[in-house]
């Protein structure tokens, strides 16, 4: 699965995207898996209320299932306009 990071999430994790081999059932499961890997993930995902997630380029939420998903992106609340 392609996992993307934007803005300060990207900076904290230290890369814009990576290919992750996972059997996580939901976004929340994937986050737990990443937090267990290394400190930088634990820091980036320490407060989920400050994060947003998109699944296959559509805004979603942390309860969403990952079956069949090709791309997951994590980022802070958007500041366009």
């Amino acid at each position, binding site marked *: 699965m392609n996992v993307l990071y934007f803005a300060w999430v990207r900076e904290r994790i230290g890369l814009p995207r990576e290919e992750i081999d996972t059997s996580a059932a939901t976004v929340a499961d994937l986050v737990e898996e990443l937090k267990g890997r290394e400190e930088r993930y634990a820091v980036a995902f320490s407060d989920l209320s400050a994060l947003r997630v998109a699944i296959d380029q559509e805004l979603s939420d942390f309860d969403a299932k990952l079956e069949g998903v090709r791309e997951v992106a994590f980022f802070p*609340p958007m500041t366009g*306009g």
Partner: protein
Amino acid sequence: MRVAIQAGPFDPGRESAVFASGRKDVGAIVTFTGVVRDTGDASLEAMEIEHYPGMTEAAVTAIAQEAQDRWSLADVLVIHRHGRLVTGDMIMMVATAARHRKDAFEAAEYLMDYLKSRAPFWKREVTAEGASWVDARDEDEDALSRW
């Protein structure tokens, strides 16, 4: 309907002149232009706008389509830049054309409210004292509840 996500500059005067020209059913045109401004404390050296290629185009197009579904509009235009900008640069613009001014105004405000909080852009301010990501404001999130 036209949606442009681009790094390069645009000419709001020319864009609004071209927009909806030659249509006989348009009585009202509203434009909004967003400009990089000095934020006060430390002098701004640059505003860097990160975005999510692919999702940005889809999200902005969906927002523009929703505006067309909700209001009686003859045309909609959204231009949004990404990359490095400086004070005075135009960040983005929206334009709406309608028979009546109420539709044109409301749709333009709707577009702005959704572009602020639902289009995948992230702003970073660079000053002499360092760089920091712009925090989303509660009032921008609250603004969505009126629609």
